[in-house]
């Protein structure tokens, strides 16, 4: 139903594909001296840089979570092992998914004029999926 790992992988892949399309288009137009490059559009420029910043921070964030995870001493619980660092990882990684969603959704809303109700419903679906996915991870460990 709601596998957080798959959702996270999909969103990172989407971010990477869209960023590479942006980058290719920008470099292609720059190299060929196109008079009116599309990156001069404020919205496209902001989206490109926001996406780049989001994905660029991925390595540092995941490294910080790995360090936190390694530094924790597992506590024996009732028939399980308790690791509280997984909660922190969940918070950080779900923030990345929501960040990429918020960055990308601006484009269709502004350019195509999608109704805010649609965005609201999609956001709700995404957030609910994240909450359930994270709860499954916290509860069952995966």
């Amino acid at each position, binding site marked *: 139903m709601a596998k957080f790992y798959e959702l996270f992988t*999909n969103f990172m*892949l*989407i971010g990477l*594909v*869209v960023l590479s*399309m942006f980058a*290719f*288009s920008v470099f*292609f*137009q720059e190299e*060929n001296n*196109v*008079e*009116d*490059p*599309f990156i*001069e*559009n404020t919205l*496209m420029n902001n989206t490109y840089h926001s996406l780049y910043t989001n994905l660029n921070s991925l390595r540092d964030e995941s490294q910080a979570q790995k360090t936190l995870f390694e530094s924790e001493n597992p506590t024996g619980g009732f028939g399980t092992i308790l690791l509280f660092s997984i909660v922190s990882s969940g918070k950080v990684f779900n923030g990345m998914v929501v960040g990429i969603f918020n960055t*990308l959704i601006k*484009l*269709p809303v502004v*350019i*195509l004029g999608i109704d805010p109700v649609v965005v609201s419903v999609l956001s709700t679906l995404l957030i609910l999926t994240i909450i359930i996915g994270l709860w499954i991870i916290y509860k069952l460990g995966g």
Partner: protein
Amino acid sequence: MVCAGLETLVDNSITGILAFPTSCDYYFYAKIMFAFWLIIAFTLYRADKDRYIKSDFISAMGVSAIATIFVSLIGTLLKIIQPDIFITIFVIGMVLIVFWLLKK
């Protein structure tokens, strides 16, 4: 819609001839790109249908959206596709690609 005759064409280069239809229909190449996307999507879908038992139209739409974005990018270089039309094509293509990747 009445378009001006070819005798009014000023720029006789390939780019000028290609850009001529946009003088009477601003969305001429947007329509061409839509037709291009549709043809590629259905061709891919048909090819998948022959190859697999269950073919996937969403992936065909996503792949053809990538092709359409790249062709329209070349169009901006030839000045036959205006930046605002390219942005619209880019965003619609991006939405299709997101659907495709989320479905995977």
